[in-house]
């Protein structure tokens, strides 16, 4: 068995993880979105590498193109001349919350990792063999953790997309590119784009109706309104 | 020959009447009255027919499966027909009375709709052929009574409704648990079985049987208003008088007492109940209720609440009769089921008449009302004397059989309770009679009635008057001609000797 992993895969995996980190934890939203487009392009590359050109094409058009456009639409950059929401997310969770999320994400990673270890025998011996699978685990954990942590709607949308990519990668890594897996991933990509588009439209609408405050989900003013005696 | 269509048809008269009444517009007074009375008469006819067929030896049964192993059963048997007859007859009277009582008040459509539902449920309880079916109608009764209790919509009425629901729904839940346990232990259990069939479980499941008995009777005791779960009843007095009459005389409390009858006689069987030692417990509980209710009634200053506590006391006579092992106790229980209904309904009609015609709610406002409303006061006198247990009113018959049953069951101490309660009854009813007939009041030119209305050219509206006179005469007749073959006593004796006891 080949002990050294394919270098390109390794690099791609590292790059994907780094880009995911960047787009998830950059408080500057425009920058985060740009990073996300880069992330999606890398994903397309990963699909190519995994031998699924159709998926690469879908990822390129749906993930990078349409999703990116949706995100920029949400930010008011597209179409030009729209009202611009604030470009930075200033909301800070308390440290404790962040720590809990981190622990949860780690536990999550452990759980998926254990399952993989049983499901893919190779993983038990040299986990490095399948770097993209590992990247998928990391991305899904990061995405989920970030999704749970963030409050800004756009950032949650980003986190969801990263999570989705991680899941797709895991799926592809586990099954190869059988038809059923491709069908699942294509559906998933389509749904992710539709969801992002819907989310983007909602963000714009909310900003239009309520201002910047509304973009922080579950903030105090709204909670007060809902709970009653 | 099994006329299976008869029981569901009798049941559907009042349910259909409810639907039609709900569908009619609020101001269709004539139509509603017509439907009400028509349905009541048709139902009475059907029930009489059913009763006749029961005498002939038929047991008309209607059944279909609800889930695997559990049937919905409507069955006309002698015991059920007693209750059905009572409810049909008093429904007719109460409907007539209610038409007069609510004349001109709002929400009559709602009232009569739920009123019909309420009586329909009562008939269902009477005809139920197993505990499952019984439970269905028992809970339906709870629900259909709630709108009647809160009918006035005042905060007091709404609070009473809440208390009523708290008690009855909790009781219903306890009952449900008991029924489920019983079904799990013994499977489907029809009231029609000879003997209880539960004896086989006695050696191994004595504790469970005891628990089931306690749950069933405990759940039913809520509606029968036994101490200490009687609290809803006096509060429910805020309801309009026909409702109080219905609650107290026919529907709710009777449903509880009737349920206990069914449980002791038809589910467990009296021998098994004695064997379990539950009859003594029941007798003590009933005696406590009887005495407590009377003591509390003594302290009431409102007419209706005095009657309410009197009901608490009186209904437990039925339970007491059930707990006295032997034919006389059974006869007493069955007879009182009917007698108490007739007398109490009369008393509540009277109370309603005083309130409607003269605005009287408190006992000390009754001075001299006998002159102003002689027929009402006469009816009240009949009812009150019956409650005390004086002949020839129907109450005497019950007391007589209760006493005999007590000696027969080896519990002569019950006689002490009976006599003491008779004296207490006299202590709280005779002063009312004294005020009615012997004290001088507004009718003699002393003071004025709280709120006098002239509802008719007689002492009050004919709608209010004649049903009351009818029930008063019936309670008198039930006592005077108790030894006739189809009197309540005669019927009860036939049931007790023919159906239940070895």
């Amino acid at each position: 068995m080949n002990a050294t992993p394919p270098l390109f895969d390794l690099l791609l995996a590292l790059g994907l993880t780094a880009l995911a980190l960047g787009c998830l934890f950059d408080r500057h939203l425009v920058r985060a979105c740009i990073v996300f487009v880069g992330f999606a392009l890398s994903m397309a590359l990963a699909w190519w590498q995994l031998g699924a050109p159709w998926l690469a094409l879908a990822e390129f058009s749906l993930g990078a193109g349409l999703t990116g456009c949706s995100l920029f639409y949400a930010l008011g950059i597209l179409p030009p001349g729209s009202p611009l929401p604030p470009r930075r997310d200033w909301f800070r969770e308390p440290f404790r919350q962040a720590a809990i999320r981190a622990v949860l994400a780690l536990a999550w990673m452990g759980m998926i990792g254990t399952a993989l270890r049983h499901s893919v025998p190779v993983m038990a011996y040299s986990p490095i063999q399948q770097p993209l699978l590992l990247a998928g685990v990391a991305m899904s954990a990061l995405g989920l953790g970030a999704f749970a942590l963030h409050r800004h709607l756009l950032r949650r949308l980003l986190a969801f997309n990263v999570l989705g990519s991680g899941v797709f990668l895991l799926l592809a890594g586990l099954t190869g590119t059988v038809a059923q897996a491709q069908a699942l991933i294509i559906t998933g990509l389509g749904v992710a784009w539709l969801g992002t588009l819907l989310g983007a439209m909602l963000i714009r609408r909310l900003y239009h109706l309520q201002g910047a405050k509304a973009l922080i989900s579950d903030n105090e003013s709204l909670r007060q309104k809902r709970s009653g005696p | 020959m099994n006329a299976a269509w008869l029981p569901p048809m009798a049941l559907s008269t009042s349910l259909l009447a409810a639907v039609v009444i709900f569908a009619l517009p609020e101001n269709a007074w004539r139509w509603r009255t017509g439907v009400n009375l028509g349905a009541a008469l048709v139902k009475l006819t059907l029930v009489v027919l059913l009763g006749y067929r029961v005498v002939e030896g038929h047991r008309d049964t209607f059944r279909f499966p609800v889930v695997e192993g559990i049937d919905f059963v409507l069955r006309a048997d002698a015991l059920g027909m007693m209750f059905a007859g009572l409810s049909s007859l008093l429904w007719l009277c109460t409907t007539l009375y209610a038409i007069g009582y609510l004349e001109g008040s709002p929400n009559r459509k709602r009232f009569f709709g739920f009123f019909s539902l309420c009586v329909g449920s009562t008939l269902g309880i009477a005809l139920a052929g197993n505990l499952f079916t019984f439970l269905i109608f028992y809970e339906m009764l709870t629900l259909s009574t709630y709108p009647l209790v809160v009918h006035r919509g005042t905060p007091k009425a709404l609070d009473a409704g809440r208390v009523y629901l708290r008690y009855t729904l909790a009781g219903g839940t306890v009952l449900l648990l008991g029924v489920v346990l019983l079904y799990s232990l013994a499977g489907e259990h029809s009231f029609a079985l000879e003997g209880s069939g539960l004896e086989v479980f006695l050696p191994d499941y004595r504790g469970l049987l005891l628990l089931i008995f306690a749950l069933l009777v405990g759940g039913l005791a809520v509606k029968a208003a036994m101490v200490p779960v009687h609290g809803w009843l006096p509060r429910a007095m805020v309801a309009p008088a026909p409702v109080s009459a219905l609650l107290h005389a026919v529907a709710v409390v009777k449903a509880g007492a009737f349920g206990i009858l069914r449980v002791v006689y038809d589910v467990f069987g009296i021998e098994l109940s004695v064997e379990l030692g539950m009859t003594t417990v029941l007798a003590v509980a009933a005696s406590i209720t009887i005495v407590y209710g009377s003591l509390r009634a003594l302290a009431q200053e409102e007419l209706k609440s005095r009657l309410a506590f009197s009901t608490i006391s009186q209904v437990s006579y039925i339970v007491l009769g059930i707990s006295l092992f032997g034919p006389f106790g059974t006869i007493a229980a069955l007879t009182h089921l009917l007698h108490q209904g007739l007398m109490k309904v009369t008393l509540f009609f009277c109370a309603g008449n005083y309130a409607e015609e003269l605005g009287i709610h408190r006992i000390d406002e009754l001075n001299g009302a006998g002159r102003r409303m002689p027929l009402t006061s006469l009816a009240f006198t009949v009812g009150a004397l019956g409650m005390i247990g004086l002949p020839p009113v129907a109450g005497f018959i019950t007391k007589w059989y209760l006493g005999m049953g007590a000696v027969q069951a080896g519990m002569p101490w019950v006689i002490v309770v009976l006599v003491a309660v008779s004296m207490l009854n006299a202590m709280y009813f005779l002063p009312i009679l004294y005020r009615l007939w012997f004290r001088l009041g507004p009718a003699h030119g002393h003071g004025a009635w709280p709120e006098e209305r002239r509802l008719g050219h007689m002492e009050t509206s004919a709608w209010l008057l004649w049903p009351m006179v009818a029930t008063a005469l019936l309670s008198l007749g039930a006592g005077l001609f108790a030894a006739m073959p189809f009197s309540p006593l005669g019927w009860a004796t036939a049931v007790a000797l023919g159906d239940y006891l070895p």
Partner: protein
Amino acid sequence: MMLPDTLTSSALWFNSLLGLALLWPLLLSIKVMWRHVAAGDQGVVQYLNGWWLSAAWPALGLVLVGNGQWILDGWILGGQWELTALSRAWLMFTALLWALAALHARGYFAHEQAEANAGDTAARRRLLRLAVLWPLTLTGNILLIVAQDIASFYLGFSLMTFAAYALVIHDESQRAVLGAHVYLIMAVLGEGMVLGGFLWVAGEAQVLTLEGLREGIAQAPHGVAIAALLWGGFGIKAGVIGLHVWLPLAHPVAPAPASAVLSGAMIKAGLLGWLNVLPLGNSLLSEGFLRLGQLIMVVGLLAAFGAAIYGVMQRHPKAVLAYSSISQMGMMTTLVATGLTAPDNWHLVWPALVLFVAHHALAKGALFMGTSISEHLPAWPLTLMWALLALPGLSLAGTLGAGMVSKWGFKSALYDNEQTTLIWLLSLAAIGTAALVSVALWRQWQQRQVGKGNGWQLYAWLATLGLALITPVWLPLPAESMPFPPFAEWPGLVWPLPLGVLAAGLVLTLWTPRPFIVPTGDLWWLYAALGRAGANVYGAMVHRLFITKASIVTRALAMETLLMKRLEQLLASDAWMRRHASGLMMALAVGLVALLAWENIPS
């Protein structure tokens, strides 16, 4: 014991007359009501008219028809109405007294009727009430006499008891209300005891007739207790000492005709109750019954003497007469007791007792009517009047007429059994009777008034008087049971009279205590005080319970408010769950895996 029928009568004839005797008074009372309603508010109605007076006549007719039996299957618990030798005699004097008292009432209430005619609504109301309830009371009285089944008897007894309340309270004065209430309270107590006894024995022996009941009591395990209970229950009506307190309070306040029937007929119903329920003359009685009989005898003698001593100190003539009734009833109680102590002799005693009762009924009736005569003395010679007024008293004391016959009757019956002590004691009690009658006359004399009399009143009184003196002549008892005393025995019968008069004179002249020392109604005031104290204690207990309950309720409410607050605080964390749904989902997934793994790790 059964007498041959005096008239040969078919059952139909008997039944219809019996029905008429019971229904006629009811119809009359409905008729009065109807006439009152028909006349309207301003109309003038003669309440005590000729029809009304005839209320008791069918019953008299029934007595003349003779013995018979009517079984009614559908009636209450199964009716059995019967005229036996006992009940026939009883019905005779009762109906006679009611008929005469009705006549007397016509005159007695003439004044009130006039007021009513003049437009006095209060008088109208009182007369209407009397006119309606008088026949009802009569019906009850007749029914309880003819009834041989328990239910009918109890029905008649209660009907009479409760309807008579209206007779007592008639004039609505404060004292009348008090008297009526005492009457009612004691009556309810009596009803309760009777009911208890009936229920008990009915349960033990499962009988519905009085005859069965007597046998049942004799054999029942707790027979003596049941008998004692029933004796006490009827004893309230019969004025047994200790339970007699309503008599002296109710009699003086009732109108004279009402007092006459109360004292003459109604308290006798209690005695009839004893005769009906106690196993008298049953030779197979247990030891317990003998003891009971002795007790009853002692109580009876106590009444005979005690009432006499207390009665002579009273001021109101009717109160004195009431005490006289108690005393006389005590003597009758003693005689009844012999049925238990010496059952073999009972067949001799009971006719004497009935004669005694009948005579007492009429004589006492005459005396009570006499009190109204002395208030409206006619223009007759005074001595004649006072002689007439004294006549029934003399007869009661056993010095002449029927009184002498009856006294001789039971004396001779007792002689046969050699109960000399008892005879001597009863003779001694006759002194008391004489003294009481003398005091009553003296009090009447003191309070006499002239004029405003009425013929009905006077002649009814005279008729009663006359009939009382010749009781044995018309009483349907076998003649041999009512022997006229041989001349040699006269002194033995008469001697108590002078002693009694002397005693009365002594008391009246030497020592007349103030009314508050010997209040009318004696023990009642003690009972009332005890009752009030008991009620106070009960009230205090209830009040304390009420306070406890209120405080518990308040505390529970406070607790509920607190719990609600806590609950709402808790429920506010729903928003927290909303915020952290995704985190919770992660935790759930991890937790599920951990759980599944844990479950499957072999331990």
